[in-house]
Protein backbone atom coordinates (compact mmCIF):
# COMPACT_ATOMS: atom_id res chain seq x y z
CA UNK A 1 0.00 0.00 0.00
CA UNK A 2 2.81 2.35 0.84
CA UNK A 3 4.25 1.91 -2.59
CA UNK A 4 0.91 2.34 -4.29
CA UNK A 5 0.33 5.71 -2.71
CA UNK A 6 3.83 6.78 -3.55
CA UNK A 7 4.41 10.14 -5.08
CA UNK A 8 4.95 9.03 -8.64
CA UNK A 9 1.74 7.02 -8.78
CA UNK A 10 -0.40 9.68 -7.19
CA UNK A 11 0.97 12.42 -9.38
CA UNK A 12 0.49 10.32 -12.48
CA UNK A 13 -3.08 9.56 -11.52
CA UNK A 14 -3.82 13.17 -10.66
CA UNK A 15 -2.27 14.36 -13.88
CA UNK A 16 -4.33 11.93 -15.89
CA UNK A 17 -7.58 12.89 -14.18
CA UNK A 18 -6.88 16.59 -14.65
CA UNK A 19 -6.04 16.09 -18.29
CA UNK A 20 -9.27 14.35 -19.20
CA UNK A 21 -11.53 16.18 -16.74
CA UNK A 22 -13.23 18.36 -19.38
CA UNK A 23 -14.56 15.27 -21.06
CA UNK A 24 -16.08 13.90 -17.86
CA UNK A 25 -17.34 16.91 -15.98
CA UNK A 26 -20.09 19.49 -16.34
CA UNK A 27 -19.13 23.18 -16.70
CA UNK A 28 -19.53 23.75 -12.96
CA UNK A 29 -16.98 21.10 -12.06
CA UNK A 30 -14.61 22.37 -14.71
CA UNK A 31 -14.87 25.86 -13.27
CA UNK A 32 -14.12 24.62 -9.78
CA UNK A 33 -11.15 22.61 -11.03
CA UNK A 34 -9.82 25.63 -12.87
CA UNK A 35 -10.16 27.71 -9.71
CA UNK A 36 -8.32 25.04 -7.78
CA UNK A 37 -5.42 25.23 -10.24
CA UNK A 38 -5.24 28.99 -9.83
CA UNK A 39 -5.19 28.65 -6.07
CA UNK A 40 -2.55 25.93 -6.23
CA UNK A 41 -0.26 28.43 -7.93
CA UNK A 42 -1.10 31.05 -5.32
CA UNK A 43 -0.60 28.71 -2.36
CA UNK A 44 2.68 27.27 -3.58
CA UNK A 45 4.04 30.77 -4.02
CA UNK A 46 2.87 31.88 -0.60
CA UNK A 47 4.40 28.83 1.00
CA UNK A 48 7.83 29.79 -0.31
CA UNK A 49 7.48 33.05 1.59
CA UNK A 50 5.64 31.83 4.67
CA UNK A 51 6.71 28.25 5.12
CA UNK A 52 10.25 28.30 3.79
CA UNK A 53 11.42 31.85 4.43
CA UNK A 54 9.28 32.25 7.52
CA UNK A 55 8.09 35.75 6.61
CA UNK A 56 4.68 36.44 8.09
CA UNK A 57 3.48 38.83 5.41
CA UNK A 58 -0.10 39.82 4.63
CA UNK A 59 0.58 41.20 1.19
CA UNK A 60 -0.19 38.18 -0.97
CA UNK A 61 -3.89 38.81 -1.50
CA UNK A 62 -3.12 42.36 -2.57
CA UNK A 63 -0.45 41.15 -5.00
CA UNK A 64 -2.97 38.63 -6.36
CA UNK A 65 -5.26 41.59 -6.93
CA UNK A 66 -2.55 43.63 -8.57
CA UNK A 67 -1.90 40.76 -10.98
CA UNK A 68 -5.58 40.61 -11.85
CA UNK A 69 -6.00 44.36 -12.14
CA UNK A 70 -2.84 44.80 -14.19
CA UNK A 71 -3.83 42.08 -16.65
CA UNK A 72 -7.32 43.48 -16.97
CA UNK A 73 -6.39 47.15 -17.13
CA UNK A 74 -3.68 46.64 -19.72
CA UNK A 75 -6.30 45.03 -21.91
CA UNK A 76 -9.10 47.48 -21.24
CA UNK A 77 -7.24 50.77 -20.92
CA UNK A 78 -4.45 50.19 -23.42
CA UNK A 79 -6.12 47.73 -25.74
CA UNK A 80 -3.33 45.19 -25.47
CA UNK A 81 -4.08 41.56 -26.12
CA UNK A 82 -4.22 39.16 -23.20
CA UNK A 83 -1.06 37.41 -24.39
CA UNK A 84 0.94 40.62 -23.94
CA UNK A 85 -0.94 42.00 -20.95
CA UNK A 86 -0.58 38.82 -18.93
CA UNK A 87 3.23 38.55 -18.92
CA UNK A 88 3.54 42.30 -18.48
CA UNK A 89 1.25 42.15 -15.47
CA UNK A 90 3.29 39.34 -13.97
CA UNK A 91 6.41 41.47 -14.27
CA UNK A 92 4.68 44.45 -12.67
CA UNK A 93 3.43 42.34 -9.78
CA UNK A 94 6.85 40.85 -9.17
CA UNK A 95 8.41 44.31 -9.08
CA UNK A 96 5.81 45.55 -6.63
CA UNK A 97 6.46 42.45 -4.54
CA UNK A 98 10.11 43.49 -4.42
CA UNK A 99 9.10 46.93 -3.19
CA UNK A 100 7.06 45.34 -0.42
CA UNK A 101 10.16 43.38 0.52
CA UNK A 102 11.99 46.57 1.45
CA UNK A 103 10.32 47.13 4.83
CA UNK A 104 10.69 43.40 5.47
CA UNK A 105 14.40 43.87 5.71
CA UNK A 106 14.02 46.06 8.78
CA UNK A 107 11.00 44.48 10.38
CA UNK A 108 9.94 41.11 11.59
CA UNK A 109 7.10 39.35 13.31
CA UNK A 110 4.15 41.55 14.21
CA UNK A 111 5.63 44.69 12.75
CA UNK A 112 6.16 43.06 9.38
CA UNK A 113 2.61 41.76 9.61
CA UNK A 114 1.30 45.23 10.19
CA UNK A 115 3.27 46.94 7.45
CA UNK A 116 2.19 44.34 4.91
CA UNK A 117 -1.34 44.65 6.25
CA UNK A 118 -1.12 48.39 5.70
CA UNK A 119 0.06 47.72 2.15
CA UNK A 120 -2.93 45.45 1.62
CA UNK A 121 -5.30 48.12 2.92
CA UNK A 122 -3.66 50.73 0.73
CA UNK A 123 -4.07 48.52 -2.33
CA UNK A 124 -7.75 47.96 -1.54
CA UNK A 125 -8.19 51.69 -1.07
CA UNK A 126 -6.59 52.41 -4.43
CA UNK A 127 -8.75 49.81 -6.12
CA UNK A 128 -11.82 51.47 -4.61
CA UNK A 129 -10.90 55.12 -4.99
CA UNK A 130 -8.45 55.61 -7.85
CA UNK A 131 -11.30 55.44 -10.28
CA UNK A 132 -9.68 57.06 -13.21
CA UNK A 133 -7.46 54.03 -13.46
CA UNK A 134 -9.11 51.16 -11.64
CA UNK A 135 -12.79 51.91 -12.31
CA UNK A 136 -13.48 51.96 -8.58
CA UNK A 137 -15.70 49.73 -6.53
CA UNK A 138 -17.89 48.59 -9.39
CA UNK A 139 -15.03 46.81 -11.03
CA UNK A 140 -14.81 46.35 -14.74
CA UNK A 141 -15.45 43.70 -17.34
CA UNK A 142 -12.57 42.16 -19.20
CA UNK A 143 -13.06 41.09 -22.80
CA UNK A 144 -13.51 37.32 -22.87
CA UNK A 145 -10.53 35.29 -23.99
CA UNK A 146 -10.51 33.39 -27.20
CA UNK A 147 -8.40 30.39 -27.89
CA UNK A 148 -8.96 30.04 -31.61
CA UNK A 149 -11.19 27.08 -32.35
CA UNK A 150 -11.21 25.88 -28.73
CA UNK A 151 -14.08 26.94 -26.43
CA UNK A 152 -12.80 29.57 -24.00
CA UNK A 153 -13.45 27.61 -20.81
CA UNK A 154 -11.51 24.67 -22.14
CA UNK A 155 -8.59 26.72 -23.39
CA UNK A 156 -8.29 28.58 -20.11
CA UNK A 157 -8.42 25.32 -18.18
CA UNK A 158 -5.52 23.84 -20.10
CA UNK A 159 -3.55 27.07 -19.88
CA UNK A 160 -4.02 27.01 -16.08
CA UNK A 161 -3.04 23.36 -15.97
CA UNK A 162 0.15 23.95 -17.92
CA UNK A 163 1.12 26.99 -15.87
CA UNK A 164 0.32 25.23 -12.60
CA UNK A 165 2.44 22.27 -13.62
CA UNK A 166 5.37 24.47 -14.60
CA UNK A 167 5.20 26.65 -11.49
CA UNK A 168 4.78 23.80 -9.04
CA UNK A 169 7.68 22.04 -10.69
CA UNK A 170 9.69 25.25 -10.51
CA UNK A 171 8.96 25.64 -6.81
CA UNK A 172 9.86 22.02 -6.19
CA UNK A 173 13.20 22.54 -7.83
CA UNK A 174 13.87 25.83 -6.11
CA UNK A 175 13.26 24.56 -2.61
CA UNK A 176 15.54 21.62 -3.20
CA UNK A 177 18.31 23.88 -4.43
CA UNK A 178 20.68 26.17 -2.60
CA UNK A 179 18.05 28.89 -2.59
CA UNK A 180 15.69 26.67 -0.63
CA UNK A 181 18.30 25.84 1.93
CA UNK A 182 19.21 29.49 2.30
CA UNK A 183 15.54 30.42 2.85
CA UNK A 184 15.16 27.82 5.55
CA UNK A 185 18.32 29.10 7.20
CA UNK A 186 16.84 32.62 7.19
CA UNK A 187 13.64 31.26 8.71
CA UNK A 188 15.18 29.23 11.45
CA UNK A 189 17.80 31.66 12.62
CA UNK A 190 18.77 34.91 11.00
CA UNK A 191 21.88 35.23 13.09
CA UNK A 192 23.17 31.78 12.23
CA UNK A 193 22.38 32.40 8.57
CA UNK A 194 24.38 35.58 8.55
CA UNK A 195 27.19 33.72 10.23
CA UNK A 196 27.10 31.36 7.26
CA UNK A 197 27.51 34.28 4.87
CA UNK A 198 23.92 34.11 3.66
CA UNK A 199 22.87 37.56 2.53
CA UNK A 200 19.59 38.08 4.41
CA UNK A 201 18.44 40.94 2.22
CA UNK A 202 19.04 39.05 -0.96
CA UNK A 203 17.21 35.93 0.08
CA UNK A 204 14.28 37.73 1.62
CA UNK A 205 13.97 39.66 -1.62
CA UNK A 206 14.04 36.40 -3.57
CA UNK A 207 11.32 34.93 -1.38
CA UNK A 208 9.08 37.96 -1.78
CA UNK A 209 9.66 38.04 -5.54
CA UNK A 210 8.81 34.39 -5.98
CA UNK A 211 5.57 34.71 -4.07
CA UNK A 212 4.75 37.90 -5.96
CA UNK A 213 5.45 36.28 -9.31
CA UNK A 214 3.19 33.35 -8.51
CA UNK A 215 0.52 35.72 -7.24
CA UNK A 216 0.78 37.71 -10.46
CA UNK A 217 0.30 34.63 -12.63
CA UNK A 218 -2.61 33.48 -10.51
CA UNK A 219 -4.10 36.97 -10.68
CA UNK A 220 -3.93 37.12 -14.45
CA UNK A 221 -5.64 33.75 -14.77
CA UNK A 222 -8.23 34.83 -12.22
CA UNK A 223 -9.15 37.90 -14.24
CA UNK A 224 -9.54 35.68 -17.28
CA UNK A 225 -11.73 33.07 -15.68
CA UNK A 226 -14.13 35.66 -14.27
CA UNK A 227 -13.94 38.06 -17.19
CA UNK A 228 -14.44 40.60 -14.45
CA UNK A 229 -12.18 42.36 -11.97
CA UNK A 230 -13.45 43.97 -8.77
CA UNK A 231 -11.91 44.78 -5.39
CA UNK A 232 -13.84 42.16 -3.39
CA UNK A 233 -11.74 39.14 -4.22
CA UNK A 234 -8.52 40.62 -2.82
CA UNK A 235 -9.33 41.59 0.73
CA UNK A 236 -8.30 40.27 4.14
CA UNK A 237 -10.71 37.37 3.96
CA UNK A 238 -8.87 36.24 0.85
CA UNK A 239 -5.63 36.46 2.77
CA UNK A 240 -7.05 34.21 5.47
CA UNK A 241 -8.15 31.68 2.86
CA UNK A 242 -4.68 31.65 1.34
CA UNK A 243 -2.98 31.23 4.70
CA UNK A 244 -5.39 28.43 5.49
CA UNK A 245 -4.50 26.61 2.30
CA UNK A 246 -0.84 26.73 3.14
CA UNK A 247 -1.16 25.76 6.79
CA UNK A 248 -3.83 23.09 6.38
CA UNK A 249 -1.84 21.55 3.56
CA UNK A 250 1.43 21.74 5.41
CA UNK A 251 3.77 24.64 6.04
CA UNK A 252 7.07 24.22 4.31
CA UNK A 253 5.85 21.59 1.88
CA UNK A 254 5.24 22.18 -1.81
CA UNK A 255 2.93 19.20 -2.15
CA UNK A 256 1.22 20.28 1.04
CA UNK A 257 0.25 23.55 -0.61
CA UNK A 258 -1.01 21.77 -3.71
CA UNK A 259 -3.10 19.53 -1.51
CA UNK A 260 -4.25 22.37 0.71
CA UNK A 261 -5.34 24.52 -2.22
CA UNK A 262 -7.19 21.70 -3.91
CA UNK A 263 -8.89 20.65 -0.70
CA UNK A 264 -9.94 24.10 0.39
CA UNK A 265 -11.40 25.05 -2.98
CA UNK A 266 -13.31 21.79 -3.08
CA UNK A 267 -14.37 22.27 0.52
CA UNK A 268 -15.74 25.75 -0.11
CA UNK A 269 -17.89 24.31 -2.87
CA UNK A 270 -18.91 21.21 -0.93
CA UNK A 271 -19.91 23.37 2.03
CA UNK A 272 -22.52 25.07 -0.14
CA UNK A 273 -24.80 22.33 1.08
CA UNK A 274 -24.87 24.10 4.43
CA UNK A 275 -26.38 27.23 2.87
CA UNK A 276 -26.38 29.88 5.58
CA UNK A 277 -24.34 27.74 7.93
CA UNK A 278 -21.30 27.72 5.64
CA UNK A 279 -19.33 30.21 7.68
CA UNK A 280 -19.73 28.07 10.77
CA UNK A 281 -18.86 24.88 8.93
CA UNK A 282 -15.77 26.39 7.33
CA UNK A 283 -14.59 27.79 10.66
CA UNK A 284 -15.05 24.41 12.34
CA UNK A 285 -13.21 22.53 9.62
CA UNK A 286 -10.36 25.02 9.79
CA UNK A 287 -10.08 24.69 13.56
CA UNK A 288 -10.23 20.91 13.48
CA UNK A 289 -7.59 20.65 10.77
CA UNK A 290 -5.22 22.97 12.54
CA UNK A 291 -5.63 21.53 16.00
CA UNK A 292 -5.47 17.87 15.03
CA UNK A 293 -3.03 18.12 12.15
CA UNK A 294 -0.68 20.93 13.11
CA UNK A 295 1.85 19.80 10.54
CA UNK A 296 -0.74 19.80 7.82
CA UNK A 297 -2.49 17.06 5.97
CA UNK A 298 0.67 16.30 4.06
CA UNK A 299 2.12 14.94 7.29
CA UNK A 300 -0.45 12.14 7.12
CA UNK A 301 0.57 11.37 3.60
CA UNK A 302 4.25 11.50 4.42
CA UNK A 303 3.86 9.07 7.26
CA UNK A 304 1.93 6.48 5.33
CA UNK A 305 3.14 6.59 1.78
CA UNK A 306 6.49 6.36 0.19
CA UNK A 307 8.22 8.92 -1.89
CA UNK A 308 6.77 12.05 -0.32
CA UNK A 309 9.73 13.03 1.75
CA UNK A 310 10.87 16.56 1.28
CA UNK A 311 14.43 17.49 2.04
CA UNK A 312 13.66 20.40 4.31
CA UNK A 313 11.74 20.27 7.54
CA UNK A 314 8.71 22.27 8.34
CA UNK A 315 9.31 25.15 10.77
CA UNK A 316 10.25 24.16 14.27
CA UNK A 317 7.68 24.08 16.98
CA UNK A 318 7.91 26.81 19.53
CA UNK A 319 9.73 25.98 22.73
Amino acid at each position, binding site marked *: MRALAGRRNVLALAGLVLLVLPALANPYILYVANMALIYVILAVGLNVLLGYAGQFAFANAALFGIGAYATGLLQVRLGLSFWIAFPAAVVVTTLIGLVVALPALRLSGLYLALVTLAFAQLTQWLMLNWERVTFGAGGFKVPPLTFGPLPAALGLYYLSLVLAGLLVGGAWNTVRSGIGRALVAVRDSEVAAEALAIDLARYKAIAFSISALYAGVAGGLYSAILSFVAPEGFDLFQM*VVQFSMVVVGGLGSVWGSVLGAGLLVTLQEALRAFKGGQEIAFGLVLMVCIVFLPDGIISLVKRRARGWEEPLRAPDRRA
Partner: protein
Amino acid sequence: MLPYLLVSGLTTGSLYALVAMGLVVVYKATTVVNFAHGELFMIGGFLAYTFHVLLKLGYVVSLVLAVAAALVLGLVTERLAYRPLMRAPAISVVLAAVGFSFVLKGAARQIWGGLGDYMPFPPVVATPAITLGGLILVPQQLVVLAGALICMGLFTAFFTSTRTGKMMQATAENAKAARLVGIRVDRVYAFTWGVGAATAAAAAVLMAPLTFVYPDVGSPLLVKAFAAAVLGGFGSLPGAVLGGFSIGLIENLAGGYINTSFTDISAFLVIMLVLIVRPTGFFGPRAVRRI
Protein backbone atom coordinates in the same frame (compact mmCIF):
# COMPACT_ATOMS: atom_id res chain seq x y z
CA MET B 1 -14.33 72.61 13.03
CA LEU B 2 -11.27 71.58 14.98
CA PRO B 3 -12.89 71.09 18.39
CA TYR B 4 -15.55 68.83 16.88
CA LEU B 5 -12.98 66.77 15.07
CA LEU B 6 -10.94 66.44 18.23
CA VAL B 7 -13.89 65.28 20.27
CA SER B 8 -15.02 62.68 17.77
CA GLY B 9 -11.41 61.65 17.22
CA LEU B 10 -11.04 61.02 20.94
CA THR B 11 -14.31 59.13 21.09
CA THR B 12 -13.45 56.82 18.22
CA GLY B 13 -9.96 56.64 19.64
CA SER B 14 -11.22 55.40 22.98
CA LEU B 15 -13.05 52.59 21.18
CA TYR B 16 -9.86 51.55 19.43
CA ALA B 17 -7.92 51.94 22.67
CA LEU B 18 -10.31 49.74 24.63
CA VAL B 19 -10.29 47.00 22.03
CA ALA B 20 -6.53 47.24 21.61
CA MET B 21 -6.03 46.86 25.35
CA GLY B 22 -7.80 43.53 25.26
CA LEU B 23 -5.49 42.38 22.47
CA VAL B 24 -2.38 43.51 24.29
CA VAL B 25 -3.35 41.88 27.59
CA VAL B 26 -3.53 38.50 25.89
CA TYR B 27 -0.35 39.13 23.94
CA LYS B 28 1.65 40.14 26.94
CA ALA B 29 0.94 36.88 28.72
CA THR B 30 0.90 34.44 25.83
CA THR B 31 2.81 36.16 22.96
CA VAL B 32 -0.14 35.38 20.73
CA VAL B 33 -2.48 37.79 18.97
CA ASN B 34 -6.08 36.75 19.44
CA PHE B 35 -7.63 37.13 16.01
CA ALA B 36 -11.03 36.22 17.36
CA HIS B 37 -11.01 39.38 19.47
CA GLY B 38 -13.22 41.34 17.08
CA GLU B 39 -15.88 38.63 17.19
CA LEU B 40 -15.70 38.44 20.98
CA PHE B 41 -16.50 42.17 20.90
CA MET B 42 -19.39 41.50 18.55
CA ILE B 43 -20.85 38.68 20.63
CA GLY B 44 -20.54 40.81 23.76
CA GLY B 45 -22.59 43.47 22.01
CA PHE B 46 -25.26 41.02 20.84
CA LEU B 47 -25.51 39.44 24.26
CA ALA B 48 -25.96 42.85 25.85
CA TYR B 49 -28.58 43.63 23.22
CA THR B 50 -30.40 40.40 23.97
CA PHE B 51 -30.36 40.99 27.71
CA HIS B 52 -31.12 44.71 27.68
CA VAL B 53 -33.43 45.19 24.70
CA LEU B 54 -35.01 41.83 24.06
CA LEU B 55 -35.27 40.55 27.63
CA LYS B 56 -35.67 44.03 29.08
CA LEU B 57 -33.16 43.57 31.89
CA GLY B 58 -31.53 46.64 33.38
CA TYR B 59 -28.49 48.25 31.78
CA VAL B 60 -26.00 47.42 34.49
CA VAL B 61 -27.31 43.86 34.82
CA SER B 62 -26.96 43.37 31.08
CA LEU B 63 -23.45 44.80 31.13
CA VAL B 64 -22.38 42.45 33.90
CA LEU B 65 -24.01 39.42 32.28
CA ALA B 66 -22.51 40.19 28.88
CA VAL B 67 -19.04 40.66 30.33
CA ALA B 68 -19.34 37.46 32.35
CA ALA B 69 -20.51 35.51 29.31
CA ALA B 70 -17.66 36.94 27.27
CA LEU B 71 -15.20 35.90 29.97
CA VAL B 72 -16.44 32.34 29.66
CA LEU B 73 -16.21 32.59 25.89
CA GLY B 74 -12.63 33.78 26.26
CA LEU B 75 -11.86 30.72 28.37
CA VAL B 76 -13.40 28.55 25.67
CA THR B 77 -11.30 30.24 22.98
CA GLU B 78 -8.17 29.56 24.97
CA ARG B 79 -9.09 25.92 25.38
CA LEU B 80 -9.90 25.40 21.70
CA ALA B 81 -7.54 27.62 19.81
CA TYR B 82 -4.54 28.14 22.03
CA ARG B 83 -3.83 25.34 24.48
CA PRO B 84 -3.64 22.55 21.90
CA LEU B 85 -1.38 24.70 19.76
CA MET B 86 1.12 25.98 22.26
CA ARG B 87 3.94 24.28 20.46
CA ALA B 88 2.80 24.96 16.94
CA PRO B 89 4.08 27.82 14.78
CA ALA B 90 2.46 31.17 15.48
CA ILE B 91 0.48 31.14 12.28
CA SER B 92 -1.40 28.05 13.38
CA VAL B 93 -2.73 29.79 16.46
CA VAL B 94 -3.68 32.75 14.31
CA LEU B 95 -5.64 30.58 11.92
CA ALA B 96 -7.31 28.57 14.65
CA ALA B 97 -8.50 31.81 16.23
CA VAL B 98 -9.67 33.02 12.82
CA GLY B 99 -11.57 29.77 12.33
CA PHE B 100 -13.24 30.31 15.68
CA SER B 101 -14.10 33.87 14.66
CA PHE B 102 -15.91 32.50 11.59
CA VAL B 103 -17.87 30.15 13.79
CA LEU B 104 -18.87 33.01 16.08
CA LYS B 105 -19.78 35.29 13.20
CA GLY B 106 -21.79 32.65 11.40
CA ALA B 107 -23.59 31.73 14.59
CA ALA B 108 -24.42 35.37 15.29
CA ARG B 109 -25.75 35.78 11.77
CA GLN B 110 -27.93 32.72 12.11
CA ILE B 111 -29.26 33.62 15.54
CA TRP B 112 -29.74 37.37 15.27
CA GLY B 113 -29.30 38.09 11.57
CA GLY B 114 -32.95 37.73 10.76
CA LEU B 115 -33.81 40.66 12.99
CA GLY B 116 -32.47 43.15 10.51
CA ASP B 117 -29.23 44.56 9.24
CA TYR B 118 -28.10 46.09 12.50
CA MET B 119 -29.42 46.60 15.96
CA PRO B 120 -29.60 50.00 17.58
CA PHE B 121 -28.67 50.12 21.22
CA PRO B 122 -30.19 52.64 23.57
CA PRO B 123 -27.65 55.01 25.13
CA VAL B 124 -26.82 54.76 28.83
CA VAL B 125 -27.97 58.25 29.55
CA ALA B 126 -30.87 59.57 27.59
CA THR B 127 -30.23 63.22 28.34
CA PRO B 128 -30.04 65.54 25.38
CA ALA B 129 -26.81 66.96 24.07
CA ILE B 130 -24.75 69.26 26.26
CA THR B 131 -23.45 72.50 24.90
CA LEU B 132 -20.06 73.43 26.23
CA GLY B 133 -19.03 76.83 25.02
CA GLY B 134 -20.14 76.34 21.44
CA LEU B 135 -19.15 72.68 21.40
CA ILE B 136 -21.97 70.16 21.31
CA LEU B 137 -21.33 66.92 23.15
CA VAL B 138 -23.45 63.83 23.17
CA PRO B 139 -23.40 62.38 26.71
CA GLN B 140 -22.65 58.92 25.37
CA GLN B 141 -19.31 60.20 24.08
CA LEU B 142 -18.39 61.31 27.56
CA VAL B 143 -19.47 57.96 28.94
CA VAL B 144 -17.22 56.20 26.45
CA LEU B 145 -14.25 58.42 27.20
CA ALA B 146 -14.76 58.00 30.90
CA GLY B 147 -15.19 54.26 30.45
CA ALA B 148 -11.96 53.97 28.55
CA LEU B 149 -10.05 55.91 31.16
CA ILE B 150 -11.57 53.89 33.99
CA CYS B 151 -10.64 50.66 32.23
CA MET B 152 -7.08 51.81 31.85
CA GLY B 153 -6.96 52.75 35.50
CA LEU B 154 -8.42 49.41 36.52
CA PHE B 155 -5.91 47.55 34.43
CA THR B 156 -2.96 49.41 35.81
CA ALA B 157 -4.18 48.86 39.36
CA PHE B 158 -4.88 45.23 38.63
CA PHE B 159 -1.48 44.49 37.23
CA THR B 160 0.53 46.33 39.81
CA SER B 161 -1.46 45.78 42.98
CA THR B 162 -3.27 42.47 42.91
CA ARG B 163 -1.66 39.10 43.31
CA THR B 164 -3.26 37.71 40.16
CA GLY B 165 -2.06 40.70 38.20
CA LYS B 166 1.47 40.21 39.38
CA MET B 167 1.26 36.54 38.53
CA MET B 168 0.19 37.47 35.02
CA GLN B 169 3.08 39.89 34.69
CA ALA B 170 5.50 37.24 35.91
CA THR B 171 4.17 34.68 33.44
CA ALA B 172 4.48 37.19 30.64
CA GLU B 173 8.09 37.89 31.47
CA ASN B 174 9.24 34.32 31.81
CA ALA B 175 6.86 31.40 31.79
CA LYS B 176 9.44 28.85 32.87
CA ALA B 177 10.53 30.86 35.87
CA ALA B 178 6.92 31.48 36.79
CA ARG B 179 6.30 27.75 36.80
CA LEU B 180 9.32 27.26 38.97
CA VAL B 181 7.98 29.58 41.65
CA GLY B 182 4.72 27.70 41.70
CA ILE B 183 2.47 29.82 39.50
CA ARG B 184 -0.17 27.77 37.74
CA VAL B 185 0.77 29.00 34.31
CA ASP B 186 -1.99 27.28 32.40
CA ARG B 187 -4.55 28.84 34.70
CA VAL B 188 -2.97 32.23 34.20
CA TYR B 189 -3.19 31.81 30.43
CA ALA B 190 -6.81 30.81 30.59
CA PHE B 191 -7.65 33.69 32.87
CA THR B 192 -5.82 36.12 30.61
CA TRP B 193 -7.87 35.11 27.61
CA GLY B 194 -10.96 35.50 29.72
CA VAL B 195 -9.94 38.98 30.77
CA GLY B 196 -9.18 39.95 27.18
CA ALA B 197 -12.59 38.80 26.04
CA ALA B 198 -14.28 40.51 28.95
CA THR B 199 -12.57 43.77 27.96
CA ALA B 200 -13.87 43.37 24.44
CA ALA B 201 -17.40 42.86 25.70
CA ALA B 202 -17.17 45.85 28.00
CA ALA B 203 -15.98 47.95 25.09
CA ALA B 204 -18.86 46.66 22.98
CA VAL B 205 -21.48 47.52 25.56
CA LEU B 206 -20.05 50.96 26.14
CA MET B 207 -19.77 51.69 22.45
CA ALA B 208 -22.89 49.90 21.21
CA PRO B 209 -25.02 53.04 21.26
CA LEU B 210 -22.49 54.66 18.93
CA THR B 211 -21.37 51.74 16.76
CA PHE B 212 -24.58 49.67 16.71
CA VAL B 213 -24.56 45.91 16.88
CA TYR B 214 -24.24 43.74 13.77
CA PRO B 215 -22.46 40.50 12.90
CA ASP B 216 -19.72 42.08 10.79
CA VAL B 217 -18.61 44.77 13.23
CA GLY B 218 -15.67 42.66 14.41
CA SER B 219 -13.31 42.49 11.45
CA PRO B 220 -12.70 46.15 10.60
CA LEU B 221 -12.42 46.88 14.30
CA LEU B 222 -9.85 44.15 14.80
CA VAL B 223 -7.69 45.55 12.03
CA LYS B 224 -7.76 49.04 13.55
CA ALA B 225 -7.17 47.76 17.08
CA PHE B 226 -4.28 45.63 15.86
CA ALA B 227 -2.82 48.68 14.15
CA ALA B 228 -3.26 50.69 17.35
CA ALA B 229 -1.54 48.05 19.42
CA VAL B 230 1.38 47.75 17.04
CA LEU B 231 1.71 51.50 16.83
CA GLY B 232 1.97 51.63 20.58
CA GLY B 233 4.56 48.91 20.56
CA PHE B 234 2.75 45.63 21.05
CA GLY B 235 3.09 44.57 24.63
CA SER B 236 2.55 47.93 26.22
CA LEU B 237 -0.86 48.81 27.60
CA PRO B 238 -0.25 52.56 27.70
CA GLY B 239 1.12 52.20 24.18
CA ALA B 240 -2.09 50.57 23.01
CA VAL B 241 -4.10 53.40 24.49
CA LEU B 242 -1.88 56.02 22.90
CA GLY B 243 -2.02 54.14 19.61
CA GLY B 244 -5.80 53.95 19.74
CA PHE B 245 -6.26 57.64 20.41
CA SER B 246 -3.72 58.50 17.73
CA ILE B 247 -5.53 56.53 15.08
CA GLY B 248 -8.89 57.98 16.04
CA LEU B 249 -7.54 61.52 15.85
CA ILE B 250 -5.65 60.97 12.60
CA GLU B 251 -8.73 59.54 10.93
CA ASN B 252 -10.96 62.41 11.89
CA LEU B 253 -8.46 65.14 11.17
CA ALA B 254 -7.57 63.71 7.78
CA GLY B 255 -11.22 63.26 6.94
CA GLY B 256 -12.08 66.77 8.01
CA TYR B 257 -9.19 68.68 6.54
CA ILE B 258 -8.04 66.68 3.53
CA ASN B 259 -10.87 64.64 2.12
CA THR B 260 -13.42 62.31 3.62
CA SER B 261 -12.30 59.52 1.33
CA PHE B 262 -9.00 59.53 3.23
CA THR B 263 -10.56 58.62 6.55
CA ASP B 264 -9.91 54.91 6.45
CA ILE B 265 -6.49 54.92 4.89
CA SER B 266 -4.85 57.84 6.66
CA ALA B 267 -4.11 55.87 9.80
CA PHE B 268 -2.37 53.15 7.86
CA LEU B 269 -0.23 55.60 5.94
CA VAL B 270 0.90 57.21 9.17
CA ILE B 271 1.62 53.81 10.68
CA MET B 272 3.75 52.79 7.75
CA LEU B 273 5.79 55.95 8.18
CA VAL B 274 6.13 55.52 11.93
CA LEU B 275 7.28 51.94 11.60
CA ILE B 276 9.91 52.86 9.08
CA VAL B 277 11.33 55.41 11.47
CA ARG B 278 10.78 53.47 14.68
CA PRO B 279 10.36 49.80 13.82
CA THR B 280 8.98 48.83 17.18
CA GLY B 281 6.30 51.45 17.61
CA PHE B 282 6.02 54.15 20.29
CA PHE B 283 6.81 52.18 23.39
CA GLY B 284 7.96 48.91 21.96
CA PRO B 285 11.14 47.43 23.31
CA ARG B 286 14.26 48.36 21.42
CA ALA B 287 14.98 45.51 19.06
CA VAL B 288 16.90 42.92 20.95
CA ARG B 289 18.32 39.97 19.15
CA ARG B 290 18.19 36.72 21.01
CA ILE B 291 21.05 34.57 19.87
